[in-house]
């Protein structure tokens, strides 16, 4: 039977229905200069936005800059936010994604220098197994085109629904499904070489 599933995704989905104050409500309070509401929004969304930017840019400082700029834009948007419209979560990721794309355009593709010492086939099993897996998966994710990578990050890491990912990417749900399918297929092929035992190959 199904395993427990992606813990991150489960927690995020559950948290959306646990009776906490809605983003719309918090934003209306932010528009009234309530710092406490801003703190809740920051704690709710800053982590995912920063993680996403880090995945795309592979540069901690740049990712933090993108996250900061995204939330700065939110402060300007708060007063004109329309409750019931686009969800804040998808709005934030859309802004962050555009900022990441701008940065990548301005600066040619960053080298994958944040992933240390990619293990080669000779010494892969001399280092900790868990770290090997992390690095292999990171490298495989790095190889994905940006849209496929974004789809995987939003759905599998951040717990977005198909509709939410579609809005964040400004595409249809069917297109999201296609991106996910291509991304997962590419990951499976890539990882089957490095981690065949873990993929049941």
């Amino acid at each position, binding site marked *: 039977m199904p395993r427990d599933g992606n813990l*991150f*995704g489960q927690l995020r989905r559950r948290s959306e229905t646990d009776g906490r104050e809605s983003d719309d409500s918090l934003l209306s309070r932010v528009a009234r*200069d309530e*710092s406490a509401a801003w703190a809740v929004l*920051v704690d709710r969304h800053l982590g995912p936005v920063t*993680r996403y930017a880090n995945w795309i840019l592979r540069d901690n400082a740049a990712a933090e800059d993108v996250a900061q700029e995204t939330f700065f834009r939110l402060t300007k948007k708060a007063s004109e936010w329309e409750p019931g419209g686009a969800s804040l979560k998808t709005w934030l990721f859309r802004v962050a994604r555009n900022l990441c794309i701008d940065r990548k355009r301005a600066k040619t593709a960053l080298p994958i220098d944040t992933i240390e010492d990619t293990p080669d086939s000779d010494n892969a099993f001399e280092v900790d197994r868990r770290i090997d*897996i992390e690095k292999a998966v990171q490298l495989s994710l790095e190889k994905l085109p940006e849209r496929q990578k974004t789809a*995987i990050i939003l759905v*599998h890491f951040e717990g977005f629904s198909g509709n939410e990912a579609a809005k964040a990417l400004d595409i249809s749900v069917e297109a999201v499904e296609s991106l*996910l399918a291509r991304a997962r297929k590419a990951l499976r092929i890539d990882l089957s070489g490095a981690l065949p035992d873990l993929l049941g190959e």
Partner: protein
Amino acid sequence: MAGTNDMTVDEFRDFLNSWGANQDLWPVENAPAAANLLVRSVEAQALFKAAAALDALLEAVPQPELSDSLRNRVMALGPQDRKVSTIGTTSLTERMTAFFGALMRPAIAGAAVAGIAVGIGISTLGGLSGLEREAPQTVAVTAPISTASPTTVTAEASETENSQTLFADSLGGGYTPNLAVFSETVSDDRQDSGFQQANFALY
């Protein structure tokens, strides 16, 4: 297959290829059909197991920690506590009016009491010589604005030959306090009419 309770194995494969084995991520419109097939199809269970293996690898990717410095910077972008923002956004006049509203009422009340006391004292001294009566008398009432500010307001009652004027000293910055500065004539026969209490209609 959307919205139906039936799903073929091929459809299930495509479904898993997109959404993986985490049922929390499955679209609600297809989840029941996929779950039904999973229960009754061995082939579907094998596909499910393979998809779960890939999901497990994705979960192995570490999630970077959020730095405190970033959180602090982003927090600073938003609204601050009202106490702070008020100082930053209101005029000096508004701020000083607020100060007086909160703190000067007791001081003014004290000044009134002192004024009465002075009046009583003058009345009592009414029988002294004219020289003594004509000498200027000054009453200074000093009230601290707050413990955090050394600023004081001095209300000085200076008795001249025919008038008594109370004025509030400036608070700096061209601020004119919203005091109804009173200047009233105290007749020479005040000892008959008594000391006229000032009108402290501050606000």
